[in-house]
């Protein structure tokens, strides 16, 4: 029983990691219907920024954290301006390819700049553990869970309660109509990319003690976060986190109870099953087809 609970908790912690990256996917998709395949690589870049600020320049952890997130927000706007804006309004396929290209580019360039070793950042959460009864929880995992919950709540409120959030939802539904209603669509898209990259930056910094920082971390985690976003129904913010947690729990349970090899495959098997039964994901809206 204790094994089960321990597996469950570590699965939830792992799942929050996926959920945190999936949040970035969902944000961009929700606001612009663009699927950003470079999200994992943005996360990796955030980790490297934090490593530069904290590990190389010797800044305070929280200062470095804030600096990395701010730098990522700027970088997100830059990427949007250079790569996404010129092809806004073209078929999804081209945009997916462009972001795949961006991912390739970021991976190799960061490998060139920072090298291909694993880097570690010293954080206030690196050492401590919390004990509840005989359960042992590491601080770094708890910090990820807390950050996921906070970010998810904030973003959910932002999208549903603020004017800017409403503008984002409007421009995702129909850019032209939103533009006629006086929404500066280009600026909205740019802000969405900034937020999404900042969320990715947060994820990168928080994951640094768990996964270390290296140039391929984004590819590995991004590919796991992607099913998480799909499982939750691509356009839903709470869905992304729930999907992430599901994937994380499935992965850690499969790793513990099933034969070797199932750990990596189980999330995808579940994903295919869900897509078969409910193609729009668990929390996705089912919209009627129109001619």
């Amino acid at each position, binding site marked *: 029983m204790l094994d089960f609970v321990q597996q469950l908790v570590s699965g939830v912690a792992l799942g929050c990691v996926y959920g945190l990256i999936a949040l970035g996917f969902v944000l961009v998709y929700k606001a612009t219907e663009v699927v950003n395949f470079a999200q994992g690589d943005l996360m990796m870049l955030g980790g490297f920024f934090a490593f530069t600020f904290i590990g190389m320049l010797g800044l305070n952890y929280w200062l470095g954290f804030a600096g990395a997130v701010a730098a990522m927000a700027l970088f997100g706007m830059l990427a949007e301006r250079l790569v996404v804006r010129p092809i806004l309004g073209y078929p999804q396929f081209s945009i997916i*390819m462009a972001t795949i290209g961006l991912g390739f580019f*970021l*991976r*190799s360039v960061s490998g060139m700049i920072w090298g291909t070793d694993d880097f570690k950042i010293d954080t206030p959460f690196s050492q401590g553990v919390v004990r509840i009864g005989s359960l042992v929880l590491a601080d770094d995992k708890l910090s990820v869970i807390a950050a996921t919950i906070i970010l998810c709540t904030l973003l959910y409120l932002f999208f549903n309660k603020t004017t800017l959030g409403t503008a984002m939802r409007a421009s995702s539904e129909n850019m032209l109509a939103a533009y006629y209603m006086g929404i500066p669509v280009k600026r909205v898209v740019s802000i969405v990319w900034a937020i999404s990259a900042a969320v990715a930056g947060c994820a990168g910094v928080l994951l640094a003690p768990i996964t270390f920082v290296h140039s391929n971390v984004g590819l590995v985690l991004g590919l796991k976060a*992607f099913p998480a976003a799909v499982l939750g129904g691509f356009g839903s913010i709470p869905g992304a986190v729930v999907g992430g947690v599901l994937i994380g729990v499935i992965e850690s349970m499969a790793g513990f109870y099933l034969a070797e090899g199932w750990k990596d495959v189980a999330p995808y098997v579940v*994903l295919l099953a869900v897509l078969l039964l409910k193609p729009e*994901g668990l929390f996705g809206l089912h*919209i009627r087809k129109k001619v």
Partner: protein
Amino acid sequence: MRFLFKTDYEDDIRLFPHSGYFVSYGILFALLLTAPYVLSSYLMSQLVFVCIYATVGVALLILTGFTGQASLGHAAFLAIGAYTAAYLQQFDVPFPVYFLAAGLLTGVVGALVGFPALRLQGIYLVIATISFAFIVEEILARWESVTHGNEGMRVKTLYLFGTAVSRDSPAFYFLCLAVLVLTIVGALNLLRSPTGRAFVAIRDSETAARSMGINVSLYKVKSFAISAAITGLAGCLFAHKLSFISPEMFTLQLSIEFIIVILIGGTFSLHGAVLGAIFIVMIDPFLTYLKDDMPGLIAGMAATMGAGSERAAHIQDSVAAFASLNGLKGAIYGIIIVLFVLFEPLGLYGRWLKIKLYFQLFPLYKRATFKRQKIYVKSERNR
């Protein structure tokens, strides 16, 4: 400029619309036939890869370009074809049999993947095919009694009609070329048949296709099966060319490479598959060439422009250091993809058509002829 006068449908769907086609394709064919006796063995080997990649490109074009179903799982189909060939070869099955079996089995798997894909659109389909590819990769690594797991499998020399065809011989190149040409001709015939028309109708609007009486599910599954089967055939040749296969060769990276093939070549015509394959395969030798010769070249240029010999040597060193950086290939890949999506969405074949039209219409060519239309009313979620 030549004007084609078409009086009936047969004229419109002709494979060779006018005699000029015979001349240009005849010359191309003659060049391809003499290639083994002219080119170096390294370039020949690359040419074989061009044939294999182009075959996969044609398969992917049928599915993605003409039926509109994106797939990032074609490496898995290639793997199934390759492993079927390698497995059957152990039992002394003759080449034609296991070649066709590879295609058949992959086609069946493709149809099975097509069924779940029926309900999926756009990004959901992409992620479903990625998941499928991951599962296949893991099965290949774990099903050790058949695939030998991560140790991989050796593929023996190919025997065709009792003679050994080594993987570097001109005969193997001719085999790959024949498969490619037959695939292209088959695909061309398919695309001008009612089935091909149905594919294009589904790509352009599923709802409209359905209301015209097209059985959308049936044709989508057909498209998946055909595309997978061709990829399986290519997989068999791929296995022979490499002579050793293991699961980590058939990763997502390879699937992405195949998508890049058709993206760079152009997704609206079969020419795109061949041009894209040439581009993707030849980028490696080109980069090696740059790495070896660029530093000297740039230093030479600097020297002629008045830099001292010490300065030139310094430039040569720094360029060489840059060229041998680890991730340079990935970065160049990324830049190429982004640039093509942004500035040449119709691909290399689109560029060729533009150049051709420029000279045909000179001086009346307008850039707007090829302009893509932007659709700001997002419909992909509601489609």
